[in-house]
């Protein structure tokens, strides 16, 4: 947890980035007090994404919540002025995408700070800075957006799939699918599990739900993922995200919103064996370690088996197979099945060419083999991970410790170099592994923009 002082120190680069961006934005855009929402949405819909996104950043930085107010009034008028039903739907999507970018504004700043305007290549070069910001404002923006997709004349009606059975997907359907993918990425990054996935089972009843929780009060039909799954039942990433949300609820460390930045070693996620042994009687458990939220233990233990089964079921699906295998392996580490974890990582390595997933699979398998005392194999995996991410201090430290453990202190020092003294690398996927789909937020934004063109 950051102290106020440390938070200020940490936010300094972000503030600088904001300052620079504001300078650029001021040169190209009206002052926030003079926001003309219709004009902004016209520009955004016309493909002028960068300039509008900068204005969004500026407006949210100088007057938080101002965009939301403008969307509800000026944005809605802009939508209502569309000449046809088709144009109305297009405008709703444009406004929703605009709102989504506003909801992810801090992440946008971090991405831009790394090297100018985001592109498919440069957007992944950012880290976790979007975590935990302005949850309620973000929820408001996303709720308003989701309402644009749904026919709310009958609030209690079932949500229909965006694409009816037997029909071809329209371009706008694809844009909506990309919108939900991006929203899920953003929300997993913020660990807003209630808004994203609703009540955890067994409290999760079938059908429309969630109105009892304040987090869901603004949504018309349950959580974001529940709506996304009904609109796009074939999209397996939503199913993957749902399992991921359950997994997050099995993490037995303190406050959920700090786990992502505090989970530094795979070991931190391990469920204490004595808790696993108590699974038939979860209410009988005692606090496992200092800081563990005892109230979360029964829910966590009840979800554990479902998490493993959920990931396992997705390993047969090509579109999510590699990620499901990686997360299945990590889940097995957590429940003490280390040898089986290495099997999952090995399959993940054979399945994907995604450098981030390959890095994580080598890192996790190396760590697992290290703990199984299969040191030579572990060393090979650490080295493979470092070839993919030379700046990874986690892997460097582990490899250095492994080498030191066999007596080669000089070699260990060479591996470690000065990496421990460097600022955290911006792009280490390990830091966003515990933020679900957030790793994909930049590319999702790019894909959404492409779908809107």
């Amino acid at each position: 947890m950051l102290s106020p002082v440390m938070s200020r120190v940490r936010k300094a680069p972000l503030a600088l980035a904001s300052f620079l961006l504001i300078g650029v934005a001021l040169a190209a855009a009206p002052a926030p007090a003079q926001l003309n929402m219709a004009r902004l949405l016209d520009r955004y819909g016309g493909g002028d994404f960068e300039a509008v996104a900068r204005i969004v950043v500026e407006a949210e930085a100088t007057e938080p919540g101002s965009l939301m107010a403008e969307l509800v009034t000026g944005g809605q008028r802009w939508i209502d002025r569309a000449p046809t039903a088709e144009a109305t739907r297009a405008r709703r999507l444009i406004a929703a995408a605009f709102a989504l970018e506003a909801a992810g504004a801090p992440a946008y700043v971090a991405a831009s700070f790394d090297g100018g305007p985001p592109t498919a290549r440069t957007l992944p070069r950012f880290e976790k800075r979007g975590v935990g910001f302005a949850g309620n404002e973000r929820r408001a923006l996303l709720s308003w957006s989701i309402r644009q997709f749904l026919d709310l004349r009958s609030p209690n009606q079932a949500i229909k799939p965006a694409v009816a059975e037997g029909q071809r997907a329209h371009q706008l359907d694809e844009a909506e699918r990309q919108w939900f993918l991006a929203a899920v990425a953003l929300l997993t990054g913020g660990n807003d599990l209630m808004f994203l996935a609703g009540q955890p089972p067994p409290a999760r009843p079938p059908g429309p739900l969630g109105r009892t929780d304040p987090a869901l009060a603004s949504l018309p039909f349950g959580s974001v993922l529940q709506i996304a799954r009904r609109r796009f039942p074939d999209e397996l990433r939503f199913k993957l995200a749902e399992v991921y949300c359950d997994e997050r609820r099995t993490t037995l460390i303190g406050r959920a919103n700090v786990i992502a930045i505090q989970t530094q070693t795979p070991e931190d996620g391990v469920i204490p064996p004595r808790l696993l042994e108590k699974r038939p009687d979860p209410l009988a458990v005692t606090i496992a370690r200092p800081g563990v939220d005892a109230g979360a233990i029964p829910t966590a233990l009840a979800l554990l088996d479902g998490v493993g089964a959920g990931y396992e079921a997705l390993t047969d699906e090509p579109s999510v197979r590699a990620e499901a295998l990686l997360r299945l392996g990590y889940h097995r580490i957590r429940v003490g099945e280390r040898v089986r974890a290495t099997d999952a990582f090995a399959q993940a390595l054979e399945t994907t060419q995604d450098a981030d997933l390959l890095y994580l699979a080598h890192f996790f398998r190396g760590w697992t083999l290290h703990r199984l005392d299969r040191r030579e194999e572990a060393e090979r995996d650490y080295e493979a991970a470092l070839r993919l991410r030379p700046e990874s201090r986690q892997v460097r430290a582990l490899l250095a410790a492994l080498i030191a453990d066999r007596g080669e202190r000089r070699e260990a020092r060479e591996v470690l170099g000065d990496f421990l003294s460097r600022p955290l690398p911006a792009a280490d996927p390990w830091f966003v592994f515990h933020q679900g789909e957030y790793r994909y937020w930049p590319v999702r934004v790019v894909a959404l923009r492409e779908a809107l063109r």
Partner: protein
Amino acid sequence: MTSRRPLLACVLAALAVPLGWAAHAQQTVRPTFRTTTAVVLVDVAVRSGTEPVTGLTAADFRLLDNGVEQSIEAVSVGAVPVDVTLLVDTSPSVIDNFNQFRDDARRLPTLLRTEDRLRVVTFDRRVIEVGPMVAAGKAFDSRQVVAGEGTSIFDALLYVFLWEPVLSRRHIVIALTDGVDTTSALDEEDIRRLAGRTDATLYLALVEPSDRANTAGVGRPRAPVVEASALMGGLAQAHKSSKDFQRTFKEIFDEFKNRYVLRYEPKGVAPDGWHEIKVEVTKAPGYSITARKGYGGR
């Protein structure tokens, strides 16, 4: 009591031929973890009640390596120059002690002898050597000790344990910390292994985590660090305030300088695996003995 300097001279002379100490007194040991050189060094503190027992010779000690008695040589640490690594916690959880720690770092050189050396390493999430190992008389600019975020004490211990020791000097690490880790890449198991692989002795000057840090539930407890210190034959003691500075460090140095270094080449034991070390003082079994509990073999 045996005069320390003649004893040191005798020991060095005895070792000079087989190991070339005389010609390479300042040459670093390579490889530096002891097991690769087949030479093991064990620091031993011997006390009678609260008083250190001085004047012992090798003949007064009995050392068992995995139960096998070894032929040892001994020298008083007090006669040997010391390399001190001061490890300063600059994380949010010690924010109440930060100024105290910075002051400690500034004043520590005044407690060392001219032949001793000091380096200063800070750690929060990052581990930074803010002052390289230099002769103790040289001033250290304590303004380089600045507060950061996170606490990577396990990673910091890896960094300091990789120090290349000089054969004719002893290396002690003094950590000013609350001992709670939150952000290391390494975990308890790594630290236990490393503790069995280093020649250094780890002393902990412990403070309580700040209530303001709000780290409850996110940190790994201090027990592994304390355990590592014990494994290495070091001590953990409370460091309550700046007023304790003189007392805390004096106790650490006195304790350390009154130790003996036992040196042996393991015979009759397999080189692999964990080697449990047991040290006894033959002439007075009632003495209390503090020594490292073992080391990791190849």
